[in-house]
C-alpha cells in the first residue's frame, strides 16, 4: 500500500532524511519511532505530498508522490504534529470546511462531518469555538479532520504529545478503534505508546532507519538482560556495594538519590534476591519494579552495537 524507495530529503545542505526504504501493507499499523529531530515529520510530510523529496520516491496505493499528488492527497488523512485547526471557527464549521477542501462532494459534507464528530466523540462540543477547547479536544478535532474524507490511510504525527495522561489514553483508544479499518502510520518518541498500538516499528535515527521489525522481534533481539529498579528510603554507598556484591549482578547504576538500576541475566529470579537483601539490611523498600526498556536505551543499544560491529 505504501512503498518508500531510497527516500532522501535535504533542507538546504542539511540531510534530514537519508535513503529510507520500507513498505507498509494494507491494514497494517506501523509505528515510526525516533527521538526529536530524527526525521519523522519530514518523512510524513513527504508522504503527504506537502514537501517534495530530494531523492528517491514513494508510491501510495500505486500513485507516485511526484506525478499523482492529487490522488494521494485524497487517499491520505493527515494529522500533523500541531493540529491544523482554526481557533476562531466552531468545530462544526471547521469540519465542514475541512470536508470541502478535502474534496468531499457538496451533498455529502454534512454526513461526513457528522460521522467524524461521532467517531471522535465531539458531538457535545460541535458548536463551540475550537480556540476555547482543551488541548485534548483540539487534538480530537485534528483527528476528525484527518478522517473527514474517509481515507484509506491515516498518517498521524505524534498524536499524543502535549496531552495529559487521561487525554493520551483517550486518543490512543480512538486510534486503536480506527486501526481495524485503516492503514495507519503513527510517529512517536514513546515506546510504550507504539507497543500498545502498532504491529510493526520503523526505528529512525538521524534520518536513517536503525531497525524495522515487529515489536516482539525487536524487544527479543534487544533484551539480553533484565533490569530492576530498586528505590529505598535510606540510600547510601553500602546499598550500591551490597547490590554489586550480589551473586549474578551484571551491573548496578545509581539512577537518582534513592533509586538504583540492577541489571541481571535474562530469566533469573532476581526480584526475590534483591528484595530479601533489602529486607535483611532494612533499607526500606519504596519501589521494586522492572525498569522497562526506554526508547533511549534501544537507541543506545542499536547505535552502540552497530558501532561495535563496525569496529
Amino acid at each position, binding site marked *: 500500500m505504501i512503498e518508500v524507495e531510497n527516500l532522501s530529503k535535504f533542507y538546504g545542505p542539511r540531510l534530514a532524511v537519508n535513503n529510507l526504504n520500507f513498505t507498509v501493507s494494507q491494514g497494517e499499523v506501523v509505528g515510526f519511532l525516533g527521538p526529536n529531530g530524527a526525521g519523522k515529520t519530514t518523512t510524513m510530510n513527504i508522504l*503527504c*505530498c506537502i*514537501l*517534495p523529496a530530494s531523492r528517491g520516491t514513494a508510491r501510495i496505493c500505486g500513485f507516485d508522490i511526484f506525478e499523482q499528488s492529487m490522488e494521494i*492527497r485524497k487517499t491520505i488523512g493527515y494529522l500533523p504534529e500541531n493540529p*491544523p485547526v482554526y481557533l476562531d*471557527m466552531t468545530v462544526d464549521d471547521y469540519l465542514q*470546511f475541512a470536508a*470541502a*477542501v478535502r474534496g468531499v462532494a457538496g451533498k455529502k459534507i454534512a454526513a461526513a462531518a457528522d460521522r467524524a464528530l461521532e467517531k471522535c466523540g465531539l458531538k457535545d462540543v460541535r458548536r463551540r469555538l475550537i480556540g476555547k477547547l482543551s488541548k485534548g479536544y483540539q487534538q480530537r478535532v485534528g483527528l476528525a479532520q484527518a478522517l473527514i474524507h474517509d481515507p484509506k490511510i491515516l498518517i498521524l504525527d505524534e498524536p499524543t504529545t502535549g496531552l495529559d495522561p487521561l487525554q493520551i489514553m483517550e486518543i490512543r483508544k480512538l486510534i486503536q478503534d480506527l486501526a481495524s479499518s485503516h492503514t495507519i502510520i503513527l510517529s512517536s518518541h514513546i515506546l510504550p505508546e507504539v507497543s500498545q498500538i502498532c504491529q510493526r516499528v520503523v526505528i529512525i535515527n538521524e534520518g536513517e532507519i536503525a531497525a524495522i521489525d515487529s515489536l516482539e522481534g525487536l524487544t527479543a533481539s534487544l533484551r539480553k538482560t533484565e533490569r530492576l529498579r530498586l528505590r529505598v528510603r535510606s540510600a547510601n554507598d553500602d546499598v550500591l556495594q551490597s547490590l554489586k556484591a550480589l551473586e549474578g549482578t551484571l551491573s548496578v547504576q545509581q539512577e537518582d538519590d534513592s533509586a538504583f538500576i540492577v541489571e541481571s541475566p535474562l530469566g533469573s529470579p532476581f526480584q526475590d534476591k534483591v528484595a530479601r537483601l533489602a529486607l535483611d539490611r532494612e533499607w526500606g523498600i519504596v519501589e521494586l519494579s522492572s525498569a522497562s526498556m526506554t526508547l533511549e536505551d534501544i537507541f543506545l543499544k542499536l547505535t552502540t552495537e552497530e558501532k561495535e560491529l563496525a569496529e
Partner: protein
Amino acid sequence: MRNSFLIAKRELGSFFSSAIFYVITVVFLLLYSFIYFQILNFFSFQSLQAAQVRGMDLGLNLNDMVIQPAFHNMAVILLLMIPIVTMRSFAEEKKGKTFTLLLSSPIHLKEIVFGKFLACWGVLTVMILLSSYSIAFLFMIGRPEIGPALTGYLGILLMSGCFVAVGILASSLTDNQIVAAALSFGFMLFMWVVGWGAQAAGPNIGPILEYLSLIDHLERFLKGIVDSSDVFYYLSFMFFALFLTHRVLDSNRWR
C-alpha cells in the same frame, strides 16, 4: 475555482466574526468622512465667496472640487489600511500551522492564493462601497456628474486590488504579521511614489517609472475616462504580484 471560493468563504467568515473587520471599517469610514466633510466645507466656502465677490455662479464643479479630492484622500487612507487587512492571510496560516491542512488537501496552491486574494479584495470592496454614502449625499445637495464618480470607484477598486495583491505577497514571505504589514506598506508606498523619480531618471527611464506608478493610472479614472491601458496595467499588476506569491510559497516547499 470552487476551491478558491471555499478558501475565500472561510477567510471572509473569519473576517466577519472577528473584530478586525469592524475596527478597520469604522476607522476607515471615520477618517474618510472627516476629510470628506472638510473638503465639502471648503468647497461651499469658496462657492459662497465666489458668489459674493463676483456676484455670479462660476460653475464651481462638484466633481472636480469634491469628488476627485475625496477619492485621492481615500486612496491614501486605503494605502494605510490595506496592509492590516492582508497581513494575516498567509502569515497567520503559517504561524498557526493550519497551512498544513491546505497543503495536504487536494487543491492547488494557485487556488489557495487566489482564494485569499478574493477574500481580502472582497472585504475591501465592502469597505469602499460603504463610503459611497458621501457621494449619494452630493446628489441630494447638488448636481454632480455620475460618470466620473462611478469610474472613480472602479479605479479605486482596481487600485486596491493591486494593494491587496502586494499585501498577500508580503504575507507569504513571513509568518510574522507585523513584518508582513511593514513589508507591504513599504512596497505599496514605493509603487505609489515611483513616478516621482520620472523627472530625475531622464527621458528613457522616466516614462517607464511613470507608467509603473500605481497612482498615475488612477487619474484618468477620476476624470471619468476608462482607458483600457490603465485597466490592463492594474490587472497585470495584480496578476504579477499573485504569481510571485505562488512562486514564493512553492519555493518554500522545495528549499
